[in-house]
């Protein structure tokens, strides 16, 4: 167990401002599930005064990650966007009376999420999360966002969220409802850019080549369709319920991305044979 300060423990055990901010108009994310910690910062910024009126977070991680996320919301509340944009990871760590050296990345995630949220509010290109080729992050495998004008992405996200909640919604709609970021991608890409025939045949070939791996485990994988950068596949047999399938799928996705040299998102739909 790490030797956390009392303040880190306090903010972990009783996090301030946890949960979804329904009327957020600036959302920033950092980290990824694959990395083991991730943060979603949601801000409500007064568009006239540019004051941060409300801040909430959702956070996946250990004690210090949750404490840093909570501390960040406390630090930015009541500040102007300009003031907030000058906050650094060191300020977050200092607010918590320090962090163990191995945990400094948690405060860095806070700084990145804040920068992303402010960029989203200002309609600038969000700061890309740090790129690690072998480890695509949540945001990284999405379509690279283009510079754009208003409305800010969170507004689109909100719209998507408010539309949701109907019974019988598809998985993708559910994702859109619960994950503003995913919704933003949908909204912003506009007309889906058609996949080139070359790319489609490469993807199809890779999936065909990797079928034996799935069949060896008494399952199967089948290409359904390619929409822009999204590759829909069907998993069947034991693969549909197998935990290992997600790893193998990741391998397929990685091969596609490495072969074509651009990000693609592999989306499985499961059907029992």
């Amino acid at each position, binding site marked *: 167990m790490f030797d956390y300060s009392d303040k880190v423990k306090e903010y972990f055990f009783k996090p301030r401002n946890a949960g979804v901010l329904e009327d957020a108009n600036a959302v920033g994310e950092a980290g990824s599930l694959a990395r083991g910690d991730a943060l979603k910062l949601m801000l409500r910024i007064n568009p006239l005064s540019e004051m941060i009126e409300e801040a909430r977070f959702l956070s996946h991680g250990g004690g210090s990650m949750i404490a840093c996320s909570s501390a960040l919301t406390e630090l930015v509340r009541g500040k102007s966007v300009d003031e907030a944009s000058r906050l650094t990871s060191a300020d977050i760590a200092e607010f918590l009376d320090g962090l163990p050296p191995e945990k400094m990345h948690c405060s860095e995630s806070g700084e990145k999420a804040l920068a992303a949220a402010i960029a989203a509010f200002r309609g600038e290109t969000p700061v890309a999360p740090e790129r690690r080729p072998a480890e695509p992050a949540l945001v990284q*495998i999405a379509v690279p966002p283009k510079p754009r004008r208003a409305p800010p992405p969170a507004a689109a996200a909100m719209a998507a969220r408010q539309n949701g909640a109907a019974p019988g919604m598809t998985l993708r709609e559910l994702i859109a409802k619960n994950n503003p970021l995913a919704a933003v991608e949908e909204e912003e890409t506009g007309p889906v850019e058609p996949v080139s025939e070359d790319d489609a045949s490469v993807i199809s070939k890779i999936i065909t080549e990797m079928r034996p791996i799935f069949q060896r485990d008494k399952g199967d994988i089948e290409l359904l369709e390619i929409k822009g950068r999204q590759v829909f596949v069907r998993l069947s047999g034991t693969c549909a319920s197998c*935990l290992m399938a997600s790893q193998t799928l990741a391998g397929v996705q990685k091969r596609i991305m490495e072969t074509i040299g651009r990000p693609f998102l592999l989306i499985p739909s499961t059907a029992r044979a």
Partner: protein
Amino acid sequence: MTNAARIYLDNNATTRVVEEAVAAMLPLYTEEYGNPSSAHAFGAAAGKGMRAARKAMQGLIGAESEAEIIFTSGGTEANTTAIRSALAVQEGRREVIISTVEHPAILQLCDALEKYEGVKVQRIPVDAQGRLEIEAYRAALSDRVAVVSFMWANNETGVIFPVEGLAELAHEFGALFHTDAVQAAGKTPISVKGTAIDMLSLSAHKFHGPKGVGVLYLKKGVAFQPLLRGGKQERGRRAGTENAPAVTGAGVAAEIAAARLADDAPRIAALRDRLEAGILNTISHCTVLGAPRDRVPNTLCIAFDLVEGEGIVMKLDRAGIAASTGSACASGAVEPSHVVRAMGVPFTAAHGVVRFSISRFTTEDEIDRLLETLPAIVADLRALSPFWSENGPNLPGQMPAAQ
């Protein structure tokens, strides 16, 4: 939180020392404090406890002779001595075979042997249930291998390797066989007599003895080179004044562990199964790690999807319950342990691994208190997660595995 109300479920890390052991140790600090090597009555008294301890260790692992027991400072020293000795006594053989899930005492020793001493190390993988890939082991064997070292039971998952058979395979190629039995002794029956196991490591504090005492079992007739030189202690096989009080206490603990094993193991297994079933029934999206039927009875390693193990352990600690995580922070990110990674646990679960390890002092009430506490802790952490919704996991498509 009063002391009595605390619940200790981290017995694979270390255990409570049995009172009988403490009682045997104390006089050796203040009254019979002689050096066992000395020729006077003080020394003789210290030597007596050590002889009893040697006998007890022989009994615990079913060794043929008490002369096969070498006391060390712990499991790490025993492991290091075994591997280095095996290389030293077979000059023509410069390869070592281990598994990818060994304790760091073996892994990091072998990393260093590879890097600084030109030894070739072959690391045999495990399957998704933590079982050794036997075919890969067979393929790695040759007459260049000096020693094979596979753990008897894994410290994180409790998975047992079939070491007796693995040892016979090593002998077919003339290689020595060592097993790190630190997590097996006192939990599962061990009888080395008549097997092909040449060396075996123990650590007393894992079976209710004091810290700082280990054992290297060295089969009679197996060539040996000491790690520590400079005295005739342990028949010249391990120099340095013996830690007579701790060795004596370790002996008492070993005697009790051996005597109680037949009764303790089924009772502990029942508690573990109660805990396992209780968790699986009350908490969604969790997976037991390790082959269910090939585990020591006291260990439950469980992966909770979409939460981070450290958060669970911190909240349990606040509730007075001690457990441990299967991950540690390293190089700027939270890394699942080498065992979790070797088993290919999906990244959605790899960070949420928690280990509960039971001892003979664990009660059913304690298990039930944990079962009352844990579901809310996991639910609270999941409620904080951007990857969890009321409907369960909330993932933007598939993402790659933890590296």
